[in-house]
């Protein structure tokens, strides 16, 4: 496979676990990092480390430029109109919280916020809390037995929705939702469309202008970047209307003892010393992904997913769409009468890392009438051979529990 040549860039993949070569199938939780990203971080701390924006000395100058270049890379990656629309945050969860916070003045009693039953907690609880605070209504679009969003239900419910909050790719079902269609309908109803891009931005081309997305959140650590850095994209017009969530330092233009005036975009939303090394590392990750091309990564995901659906599908119940093309690069599954924890623990004996649990999507699991599932998720460094190893290990699980 054409991705093979990139594996050597990931030092951790040489590692052994319980005497076996590591098979890392947990990239949907967090991805591994290529040496290029690790080096970008190290280089910053070894050669350019300084606080940004504020000082005139050379280090600060270099750090500021590197930080702002990272912002430019992010803007280009999702095709934002301007760097003013790129806010560096901690992770997707923070991005979606800032979104719900920022939009709070637009929500009144009995207004409707529309989301889905397949959301990650990060794209559910902020809206739940907002609805509670404003006595607004929170309504849900359900998914069908194949894991597709019920678009008829969506069409009916979107009409009077003030906000539509939806994930682009489900971290359990794998379903890729038709964001463009959803956004178009949302626009027609005058609603603001907020997208959880945690699982989509790392794995496919996401063009915010083409998709007509108003707000988008995603995490650096799931796309080869460092921990502690994520992005909130929002259209400038919205950001200008929004109040900042947290206050301090760079976000200030003028402060007296009694009041403060906010700074220009995007700084209005970045408080205190930024995660400078994190932004720079994310920039390096974007360089890496761009050089491989997102189209190729998507192709690879589909190929592995198709193979996994076929192979693992024989012995396990896999949730979500049957067609690999409609899915992101992961499968969540169960083996009859075996708890996912036990699957994960036994797989780990064979050096295979998967996740088990509800993957921060409790309502979705309740909807599926299961309390947990096992999940194997892929990225560019995974291979079909690793899926064969997964299958072999799953068979061993069945034997132990037979």
């Amino acid at each position, binding site marked *: 496979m054409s991705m093979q040549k990139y594996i050597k860039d990931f030092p951790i993949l040489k590692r052994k676990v319980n005497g076996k070569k590591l098979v890392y199938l947990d990239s949907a939780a967090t991805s591994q990092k290529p040496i290029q990203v690790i080096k970008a971080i190290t280089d910053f701390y070894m050669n350019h480390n300084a606080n940004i924006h504020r000082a005139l000395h050379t280090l600060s100058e270099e750090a500021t430029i590197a930080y702002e270049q990272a912002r430019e890379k992010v803007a280009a990656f999702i095709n934002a109109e301007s760097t003013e629309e790129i806010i560096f945050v901690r992770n997707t969860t923070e991005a979606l919280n800032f979104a719900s916070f920022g939009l709070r003045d637009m929500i009144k009693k009995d207004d409707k916020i529309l989301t889905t039953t397949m959301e990650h907690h990060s794209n559910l609880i902020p809206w739940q809390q907002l609805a509670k605070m404003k006595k607004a209504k929170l309504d849900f679009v359900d998914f069908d037995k194949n894991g597709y969003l019920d678009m008829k239900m969506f069409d009916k419910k979107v009409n009077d929705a003030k906000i539509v909050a939806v994930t682009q790719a489900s971290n359990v079902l794998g379903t890729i939702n038709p964001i463009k269609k959803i956004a178009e309908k949302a626009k027609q109803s005058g609603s603001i469309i907020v997208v959880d891009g945690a699982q989509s931005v790392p794995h496919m081309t996401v063009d915010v202008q083409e998709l007509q997305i108003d707000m988008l959140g995603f995490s650096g650590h799931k796309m080869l970047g460092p921990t502690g850095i994520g992005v909130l994209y929002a259209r400038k017009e919205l950001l200008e209307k929004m109040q900042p969530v947290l206050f301090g330092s760079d976000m200030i233009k003028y402060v007296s003892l009694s009041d403060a005036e906010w700074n220009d975009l995007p700084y209005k939303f970045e408080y205190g010393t930024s995660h400078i090394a994190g932004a720079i590392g994310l920039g390096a990750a974007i360089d890496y992904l761009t050089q491989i091309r997102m189209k190729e990564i998507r192709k690879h995901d589909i190929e592995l997913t198709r193979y996994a659906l076929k192979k693992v599908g024989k012995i396990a119940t896999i949730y979500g769409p049957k067609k690999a093309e409609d899915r992101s690069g992961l499968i969540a599954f169960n083996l009859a009468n075996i708890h996912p*924890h036990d699957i994960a623990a*036994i797989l*780990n*004996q064979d050096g295979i890392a998967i996740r*088990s649990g509800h993957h921060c999507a409790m309502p979705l699991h309740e909807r599926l009438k299961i309390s947990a599932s096992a999940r194997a998720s892929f990225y560019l460094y995974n291979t079909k051979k690793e899926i064969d190893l997964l299958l072999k290990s799953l068979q061993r699980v069945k034997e132990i*529990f037979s």
Partner: protein
Amino acid sequence: MDKEIYTELIMEHYKKPRNFGKILKADAEYSDANPLCGDEIKVYINFSNKKIKEIKFIGNGCAISQASASMLTDYVKGKDLEFVKKLDKDDVLKLLGIDLSFNRLKCALLPLKAIKMAVYSYFSK
């Protein structure tokens, strides 16, 4: 150590858990969940003379958490507050007869936590 957690003892308790079920109108009840993995347990206790007379549990979890609940509920029968108070991680591991990793420990300890809370709630009334 990863190798030896699915011992015969664990598997036996997992497949045929002792004290599985509900007690209607129990003297004390307590539900808890492990938020990070979705394990759930509910413990029911009847007391007599300040000692645990009857204890049952229902729940949903992996082999480790189920076996732990099965063994622990057996272990605390006839015991008093002081005994339950002193129970800790090491006692659970000794009962299970295995060693567990940091994250997996939570599975084994969930039943202990639920039993303790149920007992405390009874005695603080």
